[in-house]
């Protein structure tokens, strides 16, 4: 069982530069065909100052901030037992390439279901810009399967 002392664990604050090349690679990897996400001219024609950060890319930024899945190892979670259960984003504005964003992530909750056969870890991240204004919030639920625990 994951120790509940990890509830509230601060996964740290990290400041990252959003890079155009990285956004283009992400766009390619999801088969994006809308040029707004890869072509600077198209982005500008659509009213963006630079390539927009697509809706789910904040999760990728989160991965950069915390040594990949390092925090799960700290909790003693075997990555092979992990499934992503839920993910939610709240948007305050669109972010763009060239921006410096700060992400602060905490473990919001840890609960067990089915007598411990499933453990649920809730992670919460706030994304702010250089002025300290909130850009987006992200909330993810990770599910750890413990098949050896009889339900």
């Amino acid at each position, binding site marked *: 069982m994951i120790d509940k002392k990890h509830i509230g664990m601060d996964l740290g604050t990290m400041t990252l530069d959003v890079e155009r090349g990285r956004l283009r*690679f*992400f*766009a*390619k*990897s*999801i*088969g*994006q065909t*809308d040029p*707004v996400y890869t072509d600077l001219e198209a982005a500008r024609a*659509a*009213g963006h100052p630079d390539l*927009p950060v*697509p*809706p*789910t890319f904040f*999760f*990728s930024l989160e*991965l*950069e901030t915390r040594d*990949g*899945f390092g925090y799960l190892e700290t909790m003693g979670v075997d*990555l*092979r*037992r*992990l*499934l*992503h*259960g*839920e*993910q*939610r*984003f*709240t*948007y305050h*504005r*669109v972010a763009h390439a060239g921006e410096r964003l700060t992400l602060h992530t905490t473990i919001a909750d840890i609960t067990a279901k089915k007598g411990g056969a499933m453990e649920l870890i809730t992670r919460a991240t706030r994304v702010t810009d250089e002025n300290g204004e909130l850009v987006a919030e992200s*909330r993810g639920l990770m599910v750890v399967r413990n098949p050896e625990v009889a339900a």
Partner: protein
Amino acid sequence: MSTSLRDVAVGTELPPLALEKISRTTLALFAGGSGDHNPIHIDIDNARSAGYDDVFAQGMLSMAYLGRLLTDWVPQERIREYGVRFTAITPLYGEPTCTGTVVSLDTVDGEQRATVELVVTLADGTVTLRGDAVVALD
């Protein structure tokens, strides 16, 4: 492409987005593109050691596909909220189709907003993702 309030009603369906079959290349590219390097999605040895027959798709890949459905429908700056529940694993060679339906229209903070119910379904009918998004109209 711009979707305005007068075009949207409860029951309005978003133009569906059908994806190509998910290959090992798709998974490798998304591992790099997304920064999710969990080997269970790209290394069959790792997947087998966890009891799976083969690698399977990253959940966030399907969430990104659904994000494309949304931004194909409205400019991204209109998306206020977007969330999903991953309901089934997407196996290798799965063919996801993203669909969305407007389920309610509301005024929040003086803004007209639509709530869209989102689903990703594989060719065999398996629902892999259910979600919702709130978008501003006009």
